[in-house]
């Protein structure tokens, strides 16, 4: 009888674990289209206040683009720059401006500046949900230079993150 109840408990525990596991996995999947759009909208609002013509790229946790938006007056390099900034922020899990500063003083990080996909320039901000990086936003073309690009990208990254958090709170 005692053994039976232990088996039942184990079975119940297994059933609970199996029920939870798919949910935990679903959280691991990438950004949704709506979250990427929310990031774009928030960054465009910033650009409107700034009266600037921005180009923006959102990447997922793999560093692959989810969204591209190229400004009407953008120079040819802007969109590529935005993509590399987003890639850098996602890969090193820090704003690309912080990566620029850290890789300057730390010789070990120096070589990471040489990759075709990264760039030591401010304007890339990771999308953080708790301590987890689920993607990043990269911006090029604000009037405030690198700090301006970063502030604009941060507005987007935070909008996407808060949308993810709302979704998690509902579940």
């Amino acid at each position: 009888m005692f053994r039976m109840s232990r088996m039942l408990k184990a079975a119940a525990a297994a059933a609970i674990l199996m029920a939870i596991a798919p949910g935990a996995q679903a959280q691991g999947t990438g950004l949704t289209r709506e979250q990427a759009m929310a990031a774009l909208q928030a960054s465009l609002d910033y650009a409107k206040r700034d009266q600037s013509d921005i180009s923006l790229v959102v990447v997922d946790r793999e560093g692959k683009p989810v969204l591209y938006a190229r400004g009407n007056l953008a120079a040819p390099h802007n969109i590529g720059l935005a993509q590399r900034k987003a890639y850098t922020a996602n890969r090193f899990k820090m704003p690309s401006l912080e990566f620029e500063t850290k890789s300057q003083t730390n010789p070990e990080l120096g070589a990471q500046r040489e990759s075709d996909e990264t760039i030591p320039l401010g304007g890339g901000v990771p999308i953080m949900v708790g301590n987890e990086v689920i993607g990043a936003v990269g911006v090029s073309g604000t009037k405030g230079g690198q700090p301006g690009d970063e502030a604009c990208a941060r507005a987007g990254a935070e909008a996407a993150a808060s949308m993810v958090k709302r979704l998690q709170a509902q579940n």
Partner: protein
Amino acid sequence: MPKLLTTFVMGVFALFAIFATVTFFKTLTPAITAPTLTQKDISLEQAMEIAQAAVDECKKSDSAVTVAVVDRVGAIRFAVRATGATPDDLEAARRLAYTARTFRGPTSGWIERTTPGKDPVSLIGQRQLENTLAKAGGVPILLNGDAIGGIGVRGSKGDDMGDEACATAGVKAVDGNL
């Protein structure tokens, strides 16, 4: 009297020198006669409206699609991947938009034209062009016969022709507002 003559001759020389100098500098800076180009192009705001209309159209048939809108030179103006779609889907959508823009017609028509046997001399070589994709789902954005952009849709449940229907709906959304 000779003094007056000298002054007159000097004056003539001075005028000539001024005239010569002006003529010389005029040859250095010729007047620009060729005007700069003014071209219509798809804006980011329009591209977003077009893409949204295509997404909405596909949503009616419960399809989540990836959409790309390119400008008149075939460069991405706006693109967004469907939730859960692969990076390849975004690249395919971009190529569809590019193909429709550059050949100024739906990609389904371009596939027809480039099918061997349709023309005495086959056009299939066009399919080797970079950035093109021989699938339906790309539609040009036309303004008075001028292609000012293109849209590519990928991933509808209606397959290639379903993609094209959503792409067409996207362009229709800005009809008359270009």
